[in-house]
């Protein structure tokens, strides 16, 4: 069988990986594309949406695909994709995933199945709005940049142009090699940049690797009779303690979608009227204990106690 092309998308929470994935799917229109979705939380919300649109999607949730307790599932998923009628495989890793383990994953697959993939490289999406903040607090961002073969500085429409050279300078201090593109909504002008992408593992040699052990997550199922204003107030209270809030809630019978990156809150009625499983995934930043702040802010805004069940 011919080698299949393999692309890795990395980037911190809310940087725009899924939006860029859609651009890639447009670039690969007409090709048979399989997707591996990795979610840090328990639900792959994006995976659900993509499946509904007819794509072949494998989901690996509840941790990073590069983590020792998930990498076997990742390897299985890649091998399974190879056996299917696909030409291209795109892996969207979770925002907290450290892609510097990718060479080991490919080595392992090579041992099991031979040289079955043409690994095109790691495309790292950088959030221009939150870059400096997350770079200082999340170790994994540095490693995502360090192991990138192409870097997209996304959401440039939301920052002053004067900030961009500063961002690029910082990126270059971490990794000089890859091309850096500036995008809005992950749109690339020249698809050849993707089609001609090739990987280099040289930069992995210089990576000083550390682990992130303090990722906090909570998954809530909210089906309540509160008004959207009251719920929005709660989102505003809790968002400073989070990197990301993503998912669906039902308020007074109406389903709403939440898609927030730190304090940039998007909250709107969802078109998915028949969504059976409500899930709101919250990924906490390092500031405070999420398990303490959720009930605290819930009580403050909604005047009701909130009990979190342990989720793993």
């Amino acid at each position, binding site marked *: 069988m011919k080698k299949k092309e393999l692309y890795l998308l990395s980037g911190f929470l809310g940087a725009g990986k899924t939006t860029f994935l859609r651009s890639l799917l447009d670039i690969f229109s007409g090709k048979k594309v399989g997707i591996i979705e990795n979610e840090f939380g328990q639900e792959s919300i994006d995976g659900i949406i993509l499946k509904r649109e007819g794509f072949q999607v494998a989901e690996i949730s509840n941790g990073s695909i590069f983590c020792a307790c998930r990498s076997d599932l990742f390897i299985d998923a890649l091998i399974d994709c190879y056996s299917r009628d696909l030409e291209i495989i795109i892996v969207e890793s979770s925002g907290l995933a450290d892609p510097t383990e990718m060479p080991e994953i490919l080595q392992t697959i090579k041992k099991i199945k031979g040289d079955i993939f043409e690994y095109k490289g790691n495309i790292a999406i950088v959030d221009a709005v939150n870059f400096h903040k997350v770079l200082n607090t999340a170790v994994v961002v540095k490693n995502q940049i360090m192991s990138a073969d192409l870097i997209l500085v996304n959401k440039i429409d939301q920052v002053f142009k004067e900030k961009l050279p500063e961002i690029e300078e910082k990126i270059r201090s971490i990794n000089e090699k890859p091309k850096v593109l500036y995008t809005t909504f992950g749109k690339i002008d020249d698809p050849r940049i993707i089609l001609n992408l090739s990987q280099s593992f040289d930069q992995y040699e210089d990576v000083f690797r550390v682990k992130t052990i303090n*990722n*906090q997550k909570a998954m809530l199922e909210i089906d309540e009779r509160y008004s959207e204003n009251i719920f929005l107030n709660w989102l505003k209270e809790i968002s400073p303690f989070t990197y990301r809030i993503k998912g669906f809630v039902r308020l007074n019978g109406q389903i709403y979608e939440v898609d927030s990156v730190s304090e940039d809150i998007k909250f709107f009625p969802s078109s998915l009227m028949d969504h059976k499983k409500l899930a709101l995934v919250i990924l906490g930043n*390092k500031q405070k204990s999420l398990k303490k702040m959720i009930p605290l802010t819930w009580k403050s805004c909604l005047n009701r106690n909130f009990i979190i069940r342990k989720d793993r």
Partner: protein
Amino acid sequence: MNGKELILKTLNHEKTSQVPWVPFAGIHAGKLKGYTAKEVLTDGDKLLESLLEVEKLYVPDGMPIVFDLQVEAEILGCELVWAEDAPPSVKTHPLSETDEVPCTCIVPSKKDGRLPMILKVMEKAKKTIEKDVALYGLICGPFTLASHLRGNNLFMDMYDDEEYTKNLLNYCNEVAKKMSEYYIEAGMDVIAVVDPLVSQISSDHFEEFLSKPYTELFDFIRKEKVKSSFFVCGDATRNIEEMCKTNPDGVSVDENVDMIEAKKITDPFNIVLAGNIPLTTVMLHGNQLDNMKCVMDLLDSLEHQNLIISPGCDMPYDIPIENTIAVQQAVRNPEQAREMLKNYEAVEEEIDIELPNYEALKKPLVEVFTLDSATCAACTYMMDAANVAKEYFGDKIDLVEYKYTIKENIARCKKMGVRNLPSMYLNGELKFSSIIPSREELFEIIENSMGK
């Protein structure tokens, strides 16, 4: 019999013709080649060069490759503060704001942090040094690692959330096992598990929280057919028996422990006792004769089976080379040393120290006596507790640290009768000795003293 054979026979509890000697030259190794502590802990070439110099000058029977209890913490996200003449200290604690326990799959890999450098040096040392000298791989014990990750909150957790504490210690133990595995694979003959904070807890707490993980850890090391040592600094006397029950091959103690009393505990367990030349008063500030006398006192007062002579802990950077050589000479040639000491008189510098007038203080005075809060883990946490109080009370209290590395402070300790380090005094009265107070305890006694 060469040094390596001597160490292995000793840790196998066999009778030997000589007592072995293990200099714990961590950052001090760098001094021998003019390298700073940071250089020797981060540059593999400089580290190896320094280790070869240790072998040449100190003729050890066993020696550590790296003595840095922050290697694991750094990999797991702790920021370190580096120093020129001391190991780094931990500045941030990634689990201080969360009560989540990391997944046991998130343990250091061989490519993380400084491990690639350390493992490479271990492999090279094995080829050059290892034929004659037993190589020690030192890892951070699970309790000290838990405190690096969780910060001072850990001491409250032990009272407020026992289940969380046990789960966190279980995670840290998995890290310890992984590190042991890497070092054993790299050829280390002895795995020393260094856990300074063990001396800060009661034997009940040791039994409740540490007995199980440590027994597992030493069983793990034993299954790999490698020797083990349980290394605790500070006054660990109350915990030595519990430590022995976890079944290491050896126990290492520092100058806070009476070796004679300790050996009475370790001998029935048939466990080797290593120690305990005082680092500061003798090795750093003494002269060669002081060091020889110390060794001879140990050799003359202790049964030689199941005994290793070593410094009490990681040797201070600036220890005069001749002092360590004097120790080595005394261990190897005790009769010659005895001859030299016939006319020995210990030199004691008379330094006049004026103590505060404790009766006439305008505000509470907290005095913390430490070995050095920058390098001794237990001292760091004692000082942290004091700093938290100072931050809370502000100008209403005075706070002073007296580091034992300064001669005047040694004189102050003698004048005040300070027996163990770290210790905390309030208005001239001993309040906490080797046990770190909780925030509530400390605040209460300070507030009470304000009322008087």
